[in-house]
């Protein structure tokens, strides 16, 4: 195992990059996904169609394909982003569609009667969303949303294809250099499992808290 020692710094950076991708990707996906979900249930027809079209495209194209298209295809149109931001953008674009569909199932749990009641109290559509619909919708989908988060953690490995030095990339590189594929990639697998278990713990805690607040 001593061959791993000179690479520990690289691995620490790899894990840091992976966590960076998860944090930025998740923040972006939650914001974009929420906006899309609201668009999908909005009374404006154009907004519904736009959101549905977005989901049709981004949910149905495999993320490695999106990654390669974005990094190597877009420059043909003159759009060049550095590699790390490119990976974050693709992760957001892909997972926002899943966040949207998950949240939408939560939105549907809000009873029509509640909506009518809050209207009579004089709430604007925006106020209705903010104070009544979204809090209930999010509370209803904590566990499914946790699944999307874990999906995102694993999909950060796709950034390795385009040369972002995250965990999978680093492990692959060290495995080639040291000719020790099994141990190195096994270690990376373990790291992913640990990250996912920790996140799952947070999700379970969160679910218990929203269950009490309901």
């Amino acid at each position, binding site marked *: 195992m001593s061959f791993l020692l000179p690479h520990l710094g690289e691995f620490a950076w790899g894990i840091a990059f992976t966590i960076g991708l998860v944090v930025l990707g998740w923040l972006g996906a939650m914001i974009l996904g929420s906006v899309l979900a609201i668009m999908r249930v909005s009374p404006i027809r154009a907004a519904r169609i736009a959101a549905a079209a977005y989901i049709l495209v981004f949910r149905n194209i495999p993320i490695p394909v999106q990654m390669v298209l974005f990094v190597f295809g877009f420059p043909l149109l003159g759009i060049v982003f550095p590699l790390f931001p490119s990976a974050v953008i693709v992760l957001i674009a892909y997972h926002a569609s899943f966040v949207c569909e998950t949240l939408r199932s939560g939105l549907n749990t809000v009873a029509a009667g509640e909506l009518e009641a809050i209207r009579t109290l004089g709430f604007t559509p925006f106020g209705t969303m903010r104070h009544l619909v979204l809090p209930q919708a999010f509370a209803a989908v904590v566990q499914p949303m946790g699944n999307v988060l874990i999906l995102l953690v694993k999909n950060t490995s796709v950034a390795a294809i385009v040369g972002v030095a995250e965990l999978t990339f680093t492990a692959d590189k060290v*495995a080639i250099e040291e000719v020790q594929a099994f141990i190195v990639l096994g270690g990376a697998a373990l790291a992913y499992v640990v990250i996912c278990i920790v996140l799952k713990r947070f999700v379970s805690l969160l679910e218990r808290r929203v269950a009490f607040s309901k």
Partner: protein
Amino acid sequence: MTFMKQPKIFAALAVVAAFALGISECAVGAAHTNDAVKAYPADTAMGKIQQRGKLIVGVKVDFPLFGMKNPVTGELEGMDIQLAQGIAKDLTGSASNIQYVEVNSGNREVFLQEHKVDIVIATYPPNPAREKAVDFAGPYLMSPIGTMVNKGDDSIKKVSDLNDKNICVTKGSGSETYVPLNAPKAKLTVFSSMTQCMQALQQKRVDGVTTTQSILLGQMSQNPGKFQLVPTELLNTSGKKASDNDSIGLPKGDKALHDYLDSYLKKIFANGDWKKMYDSTLGTVMPGDAAPPPILY
């Protein structure tokens, strides 16, 4: 109607099969009578290849001039392929008694360790970590390391110019070590395939691609007029001029196979077959005349 037709089809198939078998019988018969093929003891790797009747070899399929699938014919072409065919002919009597297995820089050792292939001929230079896992015979080609830039870009002329430049290297290549060693301030972009590096260079995401000159010349031959080669002579860890010594990879500890491969290389170095292989592949783009390398491993 259909069940009336079927026996006819089977009969036709049977005739075709009989012919095919007959022909292959003949081919095998010819191979056996060919006294140029030397028989090896059954317990050696060479003996096993002869019993099986074909050589299983790991090659790359995306390296122009080395191992590259011709998009028109679907056939593999290149120096590595010709060398593999030469060995197949030497052992079994026919260059077509061969099975190719596509490998990449990350899985060559595993294929050899698990005996999924007999040998690997895939632009495969030895390094200390690899030598712990597999053995090498050769080299059959030595090539210095160079940098390719976009045509008309004069900002990289010597090794020190790589500093502060964005340089693309492939994962696991020698250049990944040599570039930071020679130009500590160079920014490395690491991709897993040469194709991606080429694309990044075309899109000006990187300023140069550094690797073995012969590989770069192969890439340039695929994209004529777009790139130019700068002979950046990098030094290796021991302060000598770095070069990639493309060798034949074989399973660790198989001395008989190793000695056979070295003797085969010596034979084709001497009888002009190596020169023929070189001239029809790399010789078409490399300047000057080439001589076979010394056997080092």
